[in-house]
């Protein structure tokens, strides 16, 4: 059977499964719709959280990113897992004990102010929308590469599927579909990784193979990789190339941001009690760690494998996968020294960022480029780092069903994250804005209807962003973390650990964090990208890491304003005491 047909079957079966689960577990009340009736088993919730958390970017791009960043890629590994410690220790159990439906709900009641609630909703919508647009795009890309439909068509199909199970099932529906999606995703990620690990080191566990000796040799894989890429003019794989302060701040921004992301926090509202919330965060991290500890191993295997099979190989002998991806346009070769062999080294092969193909083929069958050669580097090969995970099964010569599996896994990753985001956006609109602020008299039935309507409209908007992606989407996804770290995290933390923090302090703190972080990012990314280097950064901190500074400012403003404002009412102090009690 052809790879194409198999992919259709795998993807079709997985979709049928998701929809079946959604119909079986559809929501009957707002309690079901917002928090799955608060009856989800902690292990199941951990799995759903992991699927919610690991997006198209985690599944498709992270290993590729690490393969090319080397040690600098550690910021993502530590940053996107360390936040769960903060969640489990500092936020999740207390927010669960509080026991309402959304993150702005807590902020509104703890800070006895609808203004604080609305500011929190604004932060939440901004964070979640930048994130969801990336997911819909991811769905489109997987569809177009593996099923050969247009990206637009792919986005529409993806929207349709998410619409059915998120609008029908609400939180209850997406929780159990996410459990299924996690299983599909992790299986699809591990199979090629295990094969690659055996192929290179003989060790079937990628996490161990990563630190093992190469097959039939006395050299450690990691030493070989370091030596190979240094010889080619790259900086060493095992050393940081960014400054330590920047590495420190980016990691911290990602950690605190993770702990402040509303679509992650809200998952812990679905379990029965605060003990379950803590344990559930632990299970979530176990399930996430299975992928996150495999990713750096896959990254090193792929980098080494790629160099081994390409460096100084004549184009005629290039492996099939090289030519397949060249045909799609994500790999290119420009024979600068006219020797018919591919030379790979540091530096860009051409002056432009991306290859521009002419319609002609060279004498060896390679696709000719219209780019201007970059004479300062001898590198002839262009490789899009997003293809590492997708190309792995082919690089390792795995059977075609593995390729089909990886396609289904990528879709599961994108759909599960999109559905989770969709739900926090729609519930903050129907619950926080309508029921709690502007239309307090509506009945539960009406509220449920509005929640479904809001989910439907959000899907449409997200789909439009996927079809017509604004140029800035890719650049701002990482900043969602900076914003979450500098706005929501400090306010949630102080809301639990300080009885004295006042509403003026919370509103002032959130706005300070938001304005500072947002303007720093916008200034360096959009207004003066020419100045975006360490000479101009504040203390040498890049826009990716500035959320930490925003967070510190937020805390300072809160402490200061609390001193000068009227202390919170008795009822709020009682509320804080209640949520601290076991």
């Amino acid at each position, binding site marked *: 059977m052809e790879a194409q047909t198999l992919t259709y079957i795998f993807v079709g079966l997985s979709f049928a499964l998701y929809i079946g689960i959604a119909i079986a577990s559809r929501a009957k009340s707002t309690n079901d719709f917002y928090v799955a009736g608060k009856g989800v088993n902690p292990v199941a919730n951990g799995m759903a959280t992991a699927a919610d958390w690991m997006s198209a970017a985690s599944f498709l791009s992270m290993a590729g990113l*690490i393969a090319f960043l080397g*040690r600098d*890629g*550690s910021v993502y*590994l*530590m940053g996107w*897992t*360390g936040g*769960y*410690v*903060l969640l*489990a*220790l*500092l936020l999740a159990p207390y927010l669960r004990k509080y026991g309402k439906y959304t993150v702005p709900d807590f902020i509104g009641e703890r800070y006895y102010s609808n203004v604080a609630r609305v500011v929190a909703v604004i932060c939440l919508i901004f964070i979640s929308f930048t994130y969801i647009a990336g997911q819909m795009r991811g769905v489109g890309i997987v569809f177009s590469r593996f099923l050969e439909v247009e990206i637009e068509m792919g986005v529409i199909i993806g929207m349709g599927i998410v619409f059915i199970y998120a609008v029908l099932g609400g939180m209850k529906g997406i929780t159990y579909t996410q459990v299924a999606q996690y299983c599909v995703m992790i299986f699809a990620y591990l199979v090629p990784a295990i094969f690659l690990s055996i192929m290179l080191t003989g060790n079937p566990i990628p*996490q*161990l193979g*990563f*630190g*093992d*000796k190469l097959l039939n040799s006395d050299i*450690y*894989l*990691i*030493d070989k990789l370091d030596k190979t890429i240094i010889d080619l003019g790259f900086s060493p794989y*095992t050393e*940081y190339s960014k400054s*330590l302060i920047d*590495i*420190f701040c980016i*990691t*911290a921004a990602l*950690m605190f941001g993770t702990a402040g992301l509303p679509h992650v926090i809200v998952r812990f509202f679905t379990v029965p009690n605060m*003990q379950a919330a*803590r*344990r559930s*965060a*632990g299970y979530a*991290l*176990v399930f996430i*760690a299975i992928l*996150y*500890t495999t990713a*750096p191993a896959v990254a090193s295997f792929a980098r080494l494998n790629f160099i081994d099979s390409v460096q100084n190989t004549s184009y005629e002998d290039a492996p099939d996968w090289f030519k397949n991806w060249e045909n799609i346009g994500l790999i290119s070769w420009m024979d600068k020294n006219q020797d018919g062999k591919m030379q790979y080294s540091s530096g860009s092969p051409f002056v432009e960022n991306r290859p521009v193909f002419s319609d002609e083929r060279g004498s060896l069958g390679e696709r000719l480029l219209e780019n201007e050669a970059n004479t300062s580097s001898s590198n002839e090969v262009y490789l899009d780092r997003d293809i590492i995970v997708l190309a792995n099964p082919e690089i390792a010569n795995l059977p075609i069903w593995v390729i089909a599996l990886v396609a289904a896994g990528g879709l599961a990753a994108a759909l599960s994250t999109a559905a989770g985001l969709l739900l926090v956006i729609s519930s903050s609109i129907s619950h926080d804005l309508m029921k709690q602020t502007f239309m307090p008299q509506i009945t539960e039935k009406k509220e449920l209807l509005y929640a479904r309507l809001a989910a439907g409209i959000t899907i449409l908007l997200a789909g439009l962003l996927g079809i017509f992606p604004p140029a800035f989407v890719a650049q701002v996804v990482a900043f969602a973390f900076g914003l979450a770290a500098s706005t929501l995290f400090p306010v949630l933390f102080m809301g639990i650990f300080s009885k004295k923090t006042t509403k003026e302090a919370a509103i002032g703190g959130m706005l300070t964090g938001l304005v500072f972080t947002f303007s720093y990012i916008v200034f360096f990314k959009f207004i003066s990208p020419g100045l975006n280097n360490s000479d101009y950064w504040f203390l040498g901190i890049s826009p990716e890491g500035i959320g930490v500074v925003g967070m510190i400012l937020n805390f300072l403003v809160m402490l200061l304003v609390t001193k000068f404002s009227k202390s919170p009412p008795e009822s709020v102090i009682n509320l804080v005491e209640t949520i*601290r*009690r*076991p």
Partner: protein
Amino acid sequence: MTFWQKNLILLSFLLFFWFLCSFGFGILFSEYISFMKIGGFELGFWFSQQGSIYVFIILIFTYSYLVERLEKKEKK
């Protein structure tokens, strides 16, 4: 000591390890410990790409276990 004070001490203790294994071993003192090796990994590199994640998991389950014991005592 009240339950909440004990809880805060436990939290500070565990967060110290959280900081030490990620920001400490993985980033700030990575260079000073890289003479030690685990298999083919230099210790600092291992902490930043594998080890810190394992430590995070252990920390969450340790906290969960210890604080549940505190909570049971408190309820009695």
